[in-house]
């Protein structure tokens, strides 16, 4: 094994990214991601990482620079949050639709307005239709480990899509946990050297992405959707390979926690999952048959796995750290409902909390379980539960 070190989520992100031997990094600082950029700069400027570090003047350029480098055959990395993600949306959408792999870290942060810099998942949720593979981490160890897994998933010939590794701004990015750091040799054994295609190559001249007629474009979009579907299998394979080499499995697309004999289930995303598990344990002690499903991958959305995990339960609630404007609920609740085809045979509701840095506490999770327990015999949709501290 590697060495055991205490580090923040951001440090885990850049340590993991560096182990993947990126050719080029271009990233713009933004709270709460800045130390990812600084950490990588430190490694490059001190000769600890052989990579080109490009000092960009905005996130739009960060994504554009890495896109150019990837088109020229490089393994690339960037990181951002909220406003930066919004600013880079134009080349971000193009990254996935060009079908060129890369990995990006997203320290999730609430979107302005109201003016904010704090934790939330609205930024990540806002881009879920941009064609990237998107996953959420619960712990700092998971952040580091998923950097390695993400490159493997992205670069798999069945996938060829960029991966967005998300983790909670501040709650994960800035807080310290103890990590097992793989050695460079171990990382190399897991993630081979990049053998990506050079798209812009004078030796093999071609136009990269010329004006495309609709009839052809529809094939490209279908291929993209098919690749997302194929990615589900690749995600499970990579989790298994990682477990075989490092002894840590995260469950692949979803993680199930005490769900086998559960009556009621909370579905969580990201760091809140730890709090949720504590609340489930406490409920179990009181004789409530509670369970938790951690939604690890949001894109591709693990519809079948989620539906299978919820089968036979009486009630479920999805805790979103974001909102779906126009639906009076959270976005992952909406998608979970869609995945569970016979949703109204369950009792279900959306829970929204932890917006803009507000704490999503143990007490909040307990209240979700309490409501689930109260309504579990009343199938159908129930009102959205706002986890406020009034």
């Amino acid at each position, binding site marked *: 094994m590697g060495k055991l070190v205490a580090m923040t989520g951001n440090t885990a992100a850049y340590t993991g990214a560096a182990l993947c031997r990126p050719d080029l990094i271009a990233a713009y600082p933004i709270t709460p991601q800045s130390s990812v950029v600084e950490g990588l700069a430190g490694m490059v400027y001190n000769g600890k990482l052989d990579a080109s570090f490009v000092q960009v003047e905005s996130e739009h350029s960060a994504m554009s620079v890495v896109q150019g480098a990837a088109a020229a055959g490089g393994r690339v990395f960037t990181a951002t949050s909220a406003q930066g993600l919004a600013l880079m949306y134009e080349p971000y959408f193009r990254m996935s639709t060009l079908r060129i792999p890369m990995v990006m870290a997203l320290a999730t942060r609430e979107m302005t307005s109201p003016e904010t810099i704090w934790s939330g998942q609205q930024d990540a949720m806002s881009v879920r239709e941009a064609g990237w593979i998107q996953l959420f981490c619960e712990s700092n160890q998971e952040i580091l480990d998923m950097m390695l897994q993400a490159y493997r998933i992205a670069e798999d010939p069945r996938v060829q899509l960029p991966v967005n590794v998300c983790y909670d701004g501040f709650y994960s990015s800035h807080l310290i946990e103890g990590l097992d750091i793989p050695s460079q040799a171990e990382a190399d054994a897991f993630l081979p050297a990049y053998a990506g295609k050079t798209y812009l190559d004078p030796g093999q001249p071609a136009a990269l992405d010329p004006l495309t*007629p609709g*009839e*052809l474009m529809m*094939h490209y979009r279908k291929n993209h959707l098919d690749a997302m579907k194929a990615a589900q299998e690749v995600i499970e394979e990579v989790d298994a390979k990682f477990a075989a080499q490092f002894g840590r499995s995260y469950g692949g697309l979803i993680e199930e926690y005490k769900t086998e004999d559960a009556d009621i289930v909370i579905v969580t995303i990201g760091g809140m999952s730890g709090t949720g598990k504590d609340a489930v344990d406490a409920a179990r002690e009181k004789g409530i048959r509670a369970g938790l499903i951690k939604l690890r991958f949001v894109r591709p959305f693990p519809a079948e796995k989620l539906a299978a995990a919820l089968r036979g339960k009486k009630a479920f609630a999805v805790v979103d750290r974001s909102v779906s404007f126009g639906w009076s609920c959270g976005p992952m609740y909406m998608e979970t409902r869609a995945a569970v085809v016979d949703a109204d045979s369950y009792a279900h509701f959306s829970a929204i909390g932890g917006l803009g840095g507000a704490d999503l506490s143990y007490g909040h999770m307990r209240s979700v379980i309490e409501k689930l327990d109260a309504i579990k015999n009343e199938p159908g949709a129930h009102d959205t539960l706002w986890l406020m501290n009034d």
Partner: protein
Amino acid sequence: MAADTQKEVQAMLYQELILALRDRAGDSDSERWRVVRPVMDKGRCTDCGACIEFCPMATIFADGAVIRIRYEGCIGCGICAVNCRIHAITMEPSPDWHN
């Protein structure tokens, strides 16, 4: 369907689609819609190359020492005629233009 057969079918469909789009794109040759085209009087022409210099469509070329007009891609803008220092090029009706 087996993965290989599926790939073959997909490749075939792509080929057909691309050929169909190519047909639909039509003729890129400007001959049929160009109204006028330049005609060089090689008797006056001194092969100075001013026409090559300024032709935006790169349709004038050097055939060894002699300058000739290829016409492929020429859209009859008239820049060559205007910039010829000794007026050795005139713009004349393009023979294939259909009114």
